[in-house]
């Protein structure tokens, strides 16, 4: 696990180099969540709204909206597709994102319209980690692990 300013960034995920990580699943769907530095920048999340299963989202549109006491923003999908699952636990407890952004706090699973090119606009590996470190520096983020 790569770590920078206390922020964790798994090297095997794909990133939009802003807020979002993407993980390819065995069934061809793609799981989406927000990164550790993004949750740190957002602050303690108090509200999450995730689009319903069965909704089609175009590339760049929001699959979810998150809100903390100091920040409100959307979670964009880097590719077009149909939402096939959403994390209902986040609707009850959005703070989970601050605790386990890459695990229990995944946001949605999306079946891409074009699986061949769904990952064209996201990066992975060393290139992604270097860009995320620049992001952390730009926004002056320091990650701290939430205890609960």
């Amino acid at each position, binding site marked *: 696990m790569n770590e920078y300013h206390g922020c964790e960034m798994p090297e095997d995920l794909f990133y939009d180099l802003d807020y979002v990580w993407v993980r390819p699943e065995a069934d061809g769907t793609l799981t989406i969540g927000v990164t550790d530095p993004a949750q740190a920048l957002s602050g303690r999340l108090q509200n999450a709204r995730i689009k319903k299963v069965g909704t089609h989202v175009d590339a*760049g549109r*929001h699959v979810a*909206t998150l*809100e903390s006491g100091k920040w*409100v*923003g*959307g979670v964009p999908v880097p590719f077009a597709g149909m939402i096939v699952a959403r994390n209902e636990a986040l609707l009850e407890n959005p703070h989970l994102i601050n605790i386990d952004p890459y695990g229990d706090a995944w946001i949605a699973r999306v079946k891409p319209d074009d699986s061949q090119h769904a990952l064209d606009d996201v990066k992975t590996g060393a290139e992604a980690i270097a860009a995320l470190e620049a992001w952390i520096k*730009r926004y*002056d983020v320091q990650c701290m692990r939430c205890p609960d």
Partner: protein
Amino acid sequence: MKSIEQIMRHDHERLDVLLEAGAKAVRKGLWHEAADLLQRFRHGMVDGHMMVEETMLFPAFEAREGNDDLPLTALLRKGHRDLRVFFLEMEEAIGARDAEEYSALLSTVQAILKHHDAKEEKELYPHLAEALSDQGQLAGQTILSRQETAALPGRSQKFDV
């Protein structure tokens, strides 16, 4: 002549009124009026307010600070990117006559604008006159001319909010 700080603050208020007028039209089921008001809000916000900030005000502030990668302007630019997508989604909700979706989006946009505008008014605008070589005259005139365009005859600025 008003200062650039006063002009930008007033533009926030003007756009808030337009957004709320559109919300009222949706609540009344006046979808055509809601679409027109949203279009005017979006035009004023994206083609006027954000355009002036991104092309004139942010670069001047960054030059004053001697850093074109400032956390403040990076955050404000990200806010603009998010808002542009939300405006499109609001337009789609009006097109689909989906009052529930529109209401959720409106609530999100108003919350974003509350944080975003407060940050600009506190951390950016007070420094603009000093950062801009003409004290913000050109930027101010650009914003004011956009406001005049939005208030052309037949496009009344009076809203029953």
